[in-house]
């Protein structure tokens, strides 16, 4: 099966590049929700309609290329087992909704995994685009181009007053959700982030954990995105989000400096203890893994640790998720077996880094 390529590597090709402000911003995502004008939304559409949408999208876009997004692979959800779907969720290539709830769901994924166009999710089309680091404007510009490209073939549901029409009233208008994934260990350590979140919410932005709605901020990774989609132009939405993210970056850098000045040795101790745990433990849960990875990443960013590649957090956060672990082990594992396998995988990964150093 050709979707296998997306299952084998934890880190998507585009994530290997270091984007701007990559010491704090892990990635930028733009998502556009669109629907076919004539078809009922997937929520209530009959099988024939949904199959029609699938067929159309496959016929028009499968194995096409656009810009640097080469050879879109059409991946039908019905052809994947639940573990494989979960792997794609953990890599953020598809949403949990597409994996679990959609009927006749599919995704068109580019070779570099930067673009994923979900079909028959909550809306007929959910096009999402990732950029490494902090690149909101670039991502929006490319997303617009992809939108235009799709629109050459599709009559979008649109109305002059309400904009792009979506299944859920929370997406209507621009259909745009822009989000920025941030690693904020110093703000979390000093508990400043708890005081900042309510203020961010008041600006019409949402703060979530790494796997979206309702998820915990594992490993001090926070996702900031816009809530309002109606009545604000895309550029303005991006501008607001950008302003808040810039402030967060500034505060995080300041908090890091402050900790370094006031308790540098304690911080260094914390970093190296976590490094030690990752290098030597035999059983490790995902929560502890996330915490230690966050510490080590901070250690790399602050220069305590120099012999490890900078994208380790991006990579290991995905690699150590339950589904990916099992995909890697090529069998289902009990939670306890997973913790053991996770520990050995991390040890392996770190010793690989050290060898490269020699």
């Amino acid at each position, binding site marked *: 099966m050709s979707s296998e390529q997306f299952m084998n590597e934890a880190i998507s090709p585009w994530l290997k590049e270091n984007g701007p402000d990559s010491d704090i911003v892990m990635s930028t995502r733009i998502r556009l929700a669109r*629907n076919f*004008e*004539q*078809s*009922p*939304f997937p*929520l*209530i559409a009959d099988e024939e309609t949904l199959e029609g949408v699938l067929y159309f999208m496959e016929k028009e876009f499968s194995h096409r290329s656009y810009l640097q997004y080469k050879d879109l692979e059409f991946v039908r959800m019905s052809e994947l087992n639940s573990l494989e779907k979960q792997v794609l969720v953990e890599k953020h290539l598809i949403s949990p909704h597409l994996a679990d709830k959609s009927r006749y769901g599919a995704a068109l994924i580019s070779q570099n995994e930067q673009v994923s166009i979900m079909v028959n999710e*909550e809306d007929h089309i959910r096009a999402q685009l990732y950029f490494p680091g902090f690149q909101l404007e670039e991502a929006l510009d490319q997303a*617009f181009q992809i*939108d*235009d490209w799709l*629109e*050459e073939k599709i*009559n*979008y*549901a*649109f*109305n*002059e*007053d*309400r*904009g*792009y*029409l*979506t*299944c*859920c*009233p*929370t997406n*209507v*208008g*621009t259909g*745009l959700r822009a989000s920025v994934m941030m690693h904020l260990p110093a703000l979390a350590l000093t508990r400043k982030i708890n005081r900042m979140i309510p203020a961010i919410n008041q600006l*019409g932005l949402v703060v979530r954990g790494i796997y979206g*709605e309702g998820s915990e901020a594992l490993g001090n990774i926070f996702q900031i995105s816009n809530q*309002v*989609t*109606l*009545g*604000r*132009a*895309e*550029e*303005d939405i991006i501008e607001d989000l950008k302003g808040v993210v810039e402030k967060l970056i500034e505060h995080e850098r300041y908090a890091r400096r402050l900790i370094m000045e006031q308790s540098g040795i304690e911080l260094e101790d914390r970093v190296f203890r976590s490094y030690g745990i990752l290098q030597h433990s035999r059983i490790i849960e995902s929560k502890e893994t996330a915490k230690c990875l966050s510490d080590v990443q901070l250690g790399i960013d602050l220069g305590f640790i120099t012999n490890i590649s900078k994208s380790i957090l991006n990579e290991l956060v995905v690699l150590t998720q339950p589904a990916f672990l099992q995909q890697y082990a090529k069998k289902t594992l009990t939670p306890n077996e997973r913790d053991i396998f996770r520990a050995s995988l991390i040890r392996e990964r770190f010793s690989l880094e050290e060898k490269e150093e020699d």
Partner: protein
Amino acid sequence: MDCQECKQNPATVHFTQVINGEKTEVRVCQQCAKEKGYVPQDDDVYSLHHLLSGLFNPKTAVHHPSPQTEEDLKCHHCGMTYQQFTKIGKFGCASCYETFSDHLNPLFRKVHSGNTVHEGRAPKRRGSDVYSRKKLRDLKVKLQEAIADEAFEHAAEIRDEIKLVEQELHHDEERDDT
């Protein structure tokens, strides 16, 4: 004390059950209490839907325009009724937006910080003139701003651009007629 069901977790839910007049003490953990249905499953209680559908419960609305008409509202395209819409908080198809149009503003205002009208991109292809009209509206706003700022040279440029777009629109209409 351990849970009487699973005998593993500490019992945190304590209550007295009366069945046919017979009293029994129940001491279970949170997990078993949920599985046995002693307490509600909290899964979806606070999901976005529920919150959303709560936003437009007609009973809590300050003024309710004759409930008769609301109940009768039904999308001709997908068959979704207004009542169903308020229950699940999602639209069935693009036409629902037209059908329920008169009732949507309060909802949109709550969800989108007071906004009810779209700003931003419009489809190029289909919209034929949707796109141009949107552009025209934006340009006219800009023209007013330029005049207010007394930036007359800039205003003249915008005015020329407006003329161009208007000509395009007019041209399209003529072509459509033939």
